């Protein structure tokens, strides 16, 4: 693919202070990767391998102890709406309705828009995730799947340069997960927004990604392998499973994960 690099992570290191003796615990060291324009890239690894920390550094909500992150060739310094995050635990404001949660983000992204414009955009994305009629509900009245639909609507509505997904479907029941994964793919294709996702779900990564980076467990986590997924789109769970490359890819990933257990 000849597309340009949108996001570049260069030799990023992160340490956590160890207790007592002053020896730092290394999460990862000199970690580098890039995400291409309009790409769907996944980082796959065991829980606790440091992939969420990596995502938080890209988002700017955690500071790296070394290295750089560039977005559009500009170094990022702190959080920004150009790198919107979809959180594993949804992170919706529980005191706000569905519509107001999305409105909060739209207002922040488009401060000069009129009320009508903001309302229009909020409605558009509520409908896009199939939550029409739930506008006035509070998040506590929604199922996990519906909450994450709001999370996705909020994230896509601000039209970020790159969308950061932090195990977005980990807390959603398996049946709903498949439906929302399909919706995510559809939104990704409709909007053309670049996606960076971290996950520990092998099938999820194969279904959604153009490219998968395999991360070994921490401490001292590394990106060890890179796998391009050539299964044609549009993909569904069925077409992916039926594709000749599926089992080979899946086995390669499973073998990697088994080799690199804690």
């Amino acid at each position: 693919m000849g597309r340009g690099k949108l996001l570049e992570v260069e030799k990023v290191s992160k340490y956590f202070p160890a207790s007592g003796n002053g020896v730092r615990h290394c999460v990862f060291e000199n970690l580098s990767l890039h995400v291409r324009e309009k790409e769907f890239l996944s980082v796959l690894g065991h829980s606790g391998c440091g992939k969420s920390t990596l995502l938080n550094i890209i988002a700017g909500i955690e500071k790296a102890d070394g290295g750089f992150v560039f977005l559009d060739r500009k170094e990022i310094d702190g959080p920004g709406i150009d790198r919107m995050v979809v959180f594993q635990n949804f992170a919706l404001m529980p005191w706000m309705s569905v519509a107001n949660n999305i409105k909060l983000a739209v207002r922040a992204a488009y401060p000069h828009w009129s009320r009508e414009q903001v309302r229009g955009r909020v409605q558009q994305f509520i409908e896009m995730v199939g939550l029409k009629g739930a506008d006035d509900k509070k998040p506590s009245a929604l199922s996990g799947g519906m909450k994450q639909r709001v999370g996705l609507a909020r994230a896509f509505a601000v039209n970020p340069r790159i969308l950061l997904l932090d195990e977005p479907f980990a807390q959603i029941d398996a049946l709903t997960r498949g439906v929302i994964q399909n919706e995510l793919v559809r939104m990704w294709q409709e909007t053309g927004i670049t996606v960076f996702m971290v996950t520990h779900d092998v099938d999820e990564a194969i279904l959604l990604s153009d490219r998968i980076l395999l991360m070994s467990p921490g401490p001292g986590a590394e990106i060890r392998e890179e796998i391009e997924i050539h299964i044609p789109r549009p993909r569904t769970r069925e077409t992916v499973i039926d594709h000749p490359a599926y089992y080979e890819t899946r086995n390669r990933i499973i073998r990697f994960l088994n080799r690199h257990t804690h």
Partner: protein
Amino acid sequence: MTAPKSSSWLVVFGVFLIGFLSIWQLATLGAKGSSLPGPLAVARSSWEFLSDPFYDRGPNDKGIGLLTLYSLVRLTIGFSAGTLVAVLLGVVLGHNPVLYKGLNPFIQILKAISPIAWMPLLLYSVQDSGITALLVVFMASIWPTLANTAFGVANIRRDYLNVANILQMNWPTKLLKVILPAAAPTIVAGLRISIGSSWVAIVPAEALLGSLGLGYFIWNEWNNLSIANVIFAILVIGCVGVILDLLFNQAAKSMAYSE
């Protein structure tokens, strides 16, 4: 054990009320020379006050409604000022653990001091009884709200602040849309304690400072040896206190959220 019927408490309440009033009436009936009025005498004087609550015949003779209003206006001003300071300072302390730890000993000491204890000092400093009364309410209202706001803000879920930061909200937006609503249940719990202690403090402050209001009224009636009126005033103070508490309880309910 079977669940108690929802109205059972009313029976207990009624039994105790009637029992209390009967004993009170009997006790005052027996002692002929006693000046302690019974419930019937108090009810009579209450009726007089309540039938014309807003009359105004000079500084020493005002209707009970008017006096209650004086106290409530004083409460509102002092409490609002105290709340504003407490919430703003609480937000700052909640965001800054070092400042919070460093100032906490002062807050704990100040919290332990009855607002009435400040009165001589305040009166000496500002030389105005009206302002002193307001400052007493201010002092009474500040500490529970401050402590609760700082605690509430310090314990806001990291996720909400992350979202606010990713959305690059400016400070006022972040404060109004995220920090205050997230900490609102804790803050309102503090306000509820604060309004209670302010109302408790306002009565002696008015009595001692001679500021028009329920506290002044109670002292004035004591000087007139109108014990029935004193008892009536006590009942009014209690009822207003209950109403204030209910209002803040209602506010707490409307601010509560579940995740």
